[in-house]
């Protein structure tokens, strides 16, 4: 044991610090390895940061799946050349990231200019205990034309009402909703009586029929991505869908006057169920 330590310089008396030949070789090997790790690490981080700007791998949408007709909540012009559908879960952190980081740019640059129409369809996942409550509350807000405001508030306050925060989510959801809707009493009754359960069930069933496996699942034209996307990647897919549609927002005669008001969750939602 003592011999081993002397080989690497340990165990010597103070002042005797001259390294042995073996220790010197060992040091050289160490610095070579540390340089290799440093170069490899920097290269990997550089690659990772540039990869985010690369084209995203999207899978083609299976055209044999049941089509989305009028389910969900729509923001933007009905004549926009491309429709984007999000199957989302209010308690899903990735959806929250998408809603808070990417969606503001989407609304401002794509929905507001009539390039796309954005449709949100609930797909509450079983692993999230409070997500059905949130979807029902959002549908209740929609009854008063405040879906998107509620949508944004739910994602921005996920940590107040999610499964890790409370076992009585309706109480917090009522507090959030009451600050948004004009008729608080109607909203509270709607939440308490689960009046919108059937609507959420229909949204969820559509997702199941379309084999949605996770959230967010984004359908952009004929492509589908099962993850949150930064704006640049999202825009690439929209550009591709626009090119395939052969239409431009102007050529499509987009109702931009209506959609221009949707930035920052000012748009109304249209519903069928």
């Amino acid at each position, binding site marked *: *044991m*003592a011999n081993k*330590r002397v080989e*690497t*310089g*340990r*165990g*010597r*008396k103070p002042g005797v*610090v001259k*390294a042995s030949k073996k220790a010197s070789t*060992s*040091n050289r*090997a*160490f610095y070579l*390895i*540390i340089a290799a*790790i*440093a170069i490899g*690490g*920097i290269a*990997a*981080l550089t690659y*990772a*940061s540039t*990869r*985010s700007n690369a084209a995203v791998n999207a899978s083609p949408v299976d055209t044999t799946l049941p089509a989305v007709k009028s389910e969900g909540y729509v923001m933007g012009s009905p004549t926009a050349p491309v429709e984007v559908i999000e199957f989302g879960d209010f308690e*899903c*952190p*990735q959806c*929250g*990231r998408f809603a808070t*980081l990417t969606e503001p740019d989407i609304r401002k640059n794509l929905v507001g200019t009539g390039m796309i129409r954005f449709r949100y369809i609930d797909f509450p996942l079983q*692993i999230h205990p409070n997500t059905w409550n949130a979807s029902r509350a959002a549908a209740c807000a929609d009854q008063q034309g405040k879906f998107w405001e509620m949508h944004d508030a739910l994602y921005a306050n*996920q*940590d107040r009402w*999610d499964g*890790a*925060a409370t076992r009585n989510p309706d109480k917090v959801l009522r507090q959030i909703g009451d600050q948004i809707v004009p008729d608080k009493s109607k909203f509270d009754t709607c939440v308490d009586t689960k009046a919108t359960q059937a609507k959420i069930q229909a949204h969820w069933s559509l997702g199941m029929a379309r084999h949605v496996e996770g959230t967010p699942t984004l359908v952009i034209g004929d492509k589908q991505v099962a*993850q*949150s*996307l*930064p704006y*640049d*990647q999202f825009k690439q897919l929209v550009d591709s869908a626009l090119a395939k549609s052969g239409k431009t927002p102007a050529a499509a005669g987009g109702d931009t006057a209506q959609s221009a008001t949707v930035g920052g969750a000012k748009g109304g939602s249209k519903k069928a169920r």
Partner: protein
Amino acid sequence: MTKRMWMALISLAGLFLGVYLTMYKFGVIGTLACNVGSCEQVQTSRWSVFLGLPVATWGVGFYVLMLGLSIAGMQPRFLDSRRLSLGILVLAGWGVLFTAWLNYLEGFVIHAWCEWCLGSAAMVLLLFALAIMDWRETREIERETR
């Protein structure tokens, strides 16, 4: 290669891992490379921030300290320093406790695993094992030189 050299190498690898996750938290990287588990679910959960800073950033701080102490411990004047060994051991022990808490959250609260976090946990455990061996060695040297 000495134990402190190994600790420095592992710390440097951990440092890059922490920087990678920190870059994700600050939006520099769009999506995480994640073949196993649900990295983004963990990294975007409310538990991914501790005292106002991303947990990954705390990890960067931990690995920087560990790297600094390990490299300092390779210098001739600190080779037999028991105090430095003890410092490394305490830091690694704190890392193990914090990592255990994070893994508990992943398994029992968030119900999702992040492969990068598990990789970091393995590194912290290795660092702790090496720190124990290093501390025992310096203790032995101290006894022999008395």
